[in-house]
């Protein structure tokens, strides 16, 4: 599904990602862990198509296509989803308009008719229940005045609406209490199937008790310094990262 080969990325002249290699197959869940400032969000943003980054070297193939050649919107329409670490507030853009436009753009890309108002509302109700998103929140502007936890739930809600093939969740767990964490994980697990994959970026192994990864990678100073099975997360929990920082 996704192949990253020797990806080197700079921002404002500073190299952040220093040669990332990663292979994600359909149905797999990969966790990326690592201390703050390692480049985890940078990786997620580059994959989602944020433009302020300079690609120094490397290649990313998504379903056989050159991902780095596509616009952010096309990546989304082709099934890539980034759950933001810090979802931005957009006053004046109503949630409902935003979600509806987004869903219908995805449908248009697939050659489908837009949803009718009734179908859309039904779908929205269903997905809101799935993530226990407060019904009132969709009457507001995008993320406006949402609490930290509500913003994260809103990301999962959008993911549920769009049903991506590859979800990249950037610290969706941070700032969530245990109940919210469970809800978010259920949202992610509900989407799980042999055709879908996920990259879960997290600080803590706690989330990985709910979303069980097939692989755990440690990103440190722009490089993947260790990759192993899910047991690595526990090891990191016990020993911290220092033993990996040679």
């Amino acid at each position, binding site marked *: 599904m996704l192949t990253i080969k020797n990806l080197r990325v700079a921002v404002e002249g500073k190299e952040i990602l220093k040669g990332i290699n990663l292979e994600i197959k359909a149905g797999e869940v990969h966790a990326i862990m690592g201390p703050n400032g390692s480049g985890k969000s940078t990786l997620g943003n580059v994959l*989602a*198509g*944020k*433009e*302020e980054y300079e690609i120094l070297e490397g290649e990313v193939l998504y379903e056989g296509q050159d991902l780095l050649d596509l*616009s*952010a*919107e096309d*990546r*989304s*329409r082709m099934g890539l989803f*980034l759950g*933001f670490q810090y*979802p*931005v507030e*957009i*006053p*004046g*853009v109503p949630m409902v*308009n*935003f979600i509806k*436009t*987004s869903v219908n*753009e*995805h449908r248009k*890309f697939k050659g489908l008719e837009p949803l009718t108002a009734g179908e859309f509302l039904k779908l929205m109700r269903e997905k809101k229940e799935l993530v226990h998103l407060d019904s009132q929140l969709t009457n507001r*502007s*995008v993320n406006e005045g949402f609490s930290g936890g509500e913003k994260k739930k809103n990301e999962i809600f*959008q993911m549920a609406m*769009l049903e991506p093939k590859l979800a990249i969740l950037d610290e969706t767990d941070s700032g969530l209490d245990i109940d919210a964490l469970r809800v978010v994980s259920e949202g992610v697990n509900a989407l799980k199937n042999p055709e879908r994959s996920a990259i879960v970026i997290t600080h803590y192994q706690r989330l990985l008790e709910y979303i069980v990864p097939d692989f755990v990678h440690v990103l440190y100073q722009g490089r993947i310094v260790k990759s192993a099975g899910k047991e690595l997360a526990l090891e990191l929990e016990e020993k911290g990262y220092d033993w990996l920082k040679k």
Partner: protein
Amino acid sequence: MTMTANKIALSERYTALFHANRARLDEGSSNLINRMRDIAIKRFEKVGIPGFKNEDYKYTNLERVFDQDYRHILEYEKVDIDLNEAFRCDVPQLDTHVVLLVNGWYYAKNQPLQNLPKGVVVGSLQEVANEQPELVQDYLNRQAGLSEDPIVALNTALAKDGFFLYVPDHVVLEKPIQVINLMRAEDAVFATQRNLIVVGKNSQAKVIFCDHTLSARDFLTNNVTEVFVGEDAVADVYTVQNQDNQANSINSSFFKQGANSNLLTSVATLHGGLIRNNLKVEFAGEHAEANVYGMSFTDKKQHVDNFTNIEHAYPNCLSNQVYKNVLDEDSVGAFTGRIHVVRDAQKTNAFQRNNNVLLTDSAKMNTKPQLIIDADDVKCSHGATVGQIDEEALFYLRARGIGESDARMMLMNAFAHEVVQNIRVEPLRDRIDELVEKRLRGELARCHSCDMS
């Protein structure tokens, strides 16, 4: 010729025009109008056409637009087509009383307005001043006459006609009055328009001005509007500016508000060349509230300057101003917001905000708050921002599959929406939302709300 010499020559052209046409100006007009002319022209002469050295006009040099050979329309000119036929507002939900003006004059073939509440008078200022001077005499020039602005004085010197509305005390005028200001000529025309609106005590009225051009010529409009909002009255005054970019205009509005009155005024500037909007609100009693909004969407070489002045002359009043501008290409904008709280105007609330988005490096915005506060127990705030479109928000939308240009549009609409949402006439609000969107998409060449071509 030096700049100063040129300025004098330019101003003299206008005073000369006045003196050469002194008798024609008086002809047909009521003495109520004519008696103001000589004082006004003297006031104009003192300052002349303001150049860039004039502090109040430092962001807008009017010399360029005044320095033209315009034809002044000193008596009503017959219109060779039926404007009622030609004009049809395509917003059927916008249920209004429609009144047409042409080149600053009240159109002679306006359809009589049906079902106006008793005592409400809508018509030509010239005609009402002649026939019912008692409705005019206590109001005309009572605010504008105090202004130091030479352009306002020039209007007073040259004005013969305009829109008039009188709503007696205790009357609710449900339907808005929609005043369509049309410019139509085959040559360069200077229009002087003088409007007077009186909303009596405990009354309510809504007026929508729509500024249009029916031909693309060099036009200059000098428009002055005085609005008297009585005690406990509620008044809405909306303006949609959508003229051809060859048309320039200076619009000066004066609002005087009685105790407990409520004013909402909002201007949306879509198209037009050089536009200067002067707005003054003066509170003449306690517990009055003024909400003042403006938005503009400019491109090419458009120039839009909003200059506001809120005079908190009484305690316990509230003023709230929000102005937003989206500037594209080489357009230039300006906002000056003056708030004056006099010494005894305690418990004043005065808020002001001006937010601007520049879409190009060559667009330019000047913004200047001016707070003069002479009372101690007041709440005042002001804020101004000049920025680009929020790239983080843009990425967020695109990352959900929304195409770049649609995403930009969503953000600009959102930016404007804060102003649009305050419009209290729902169909007008929807209409302006739609016009703004069309304007931002570049689809609005001229106003689509009339079928006139």
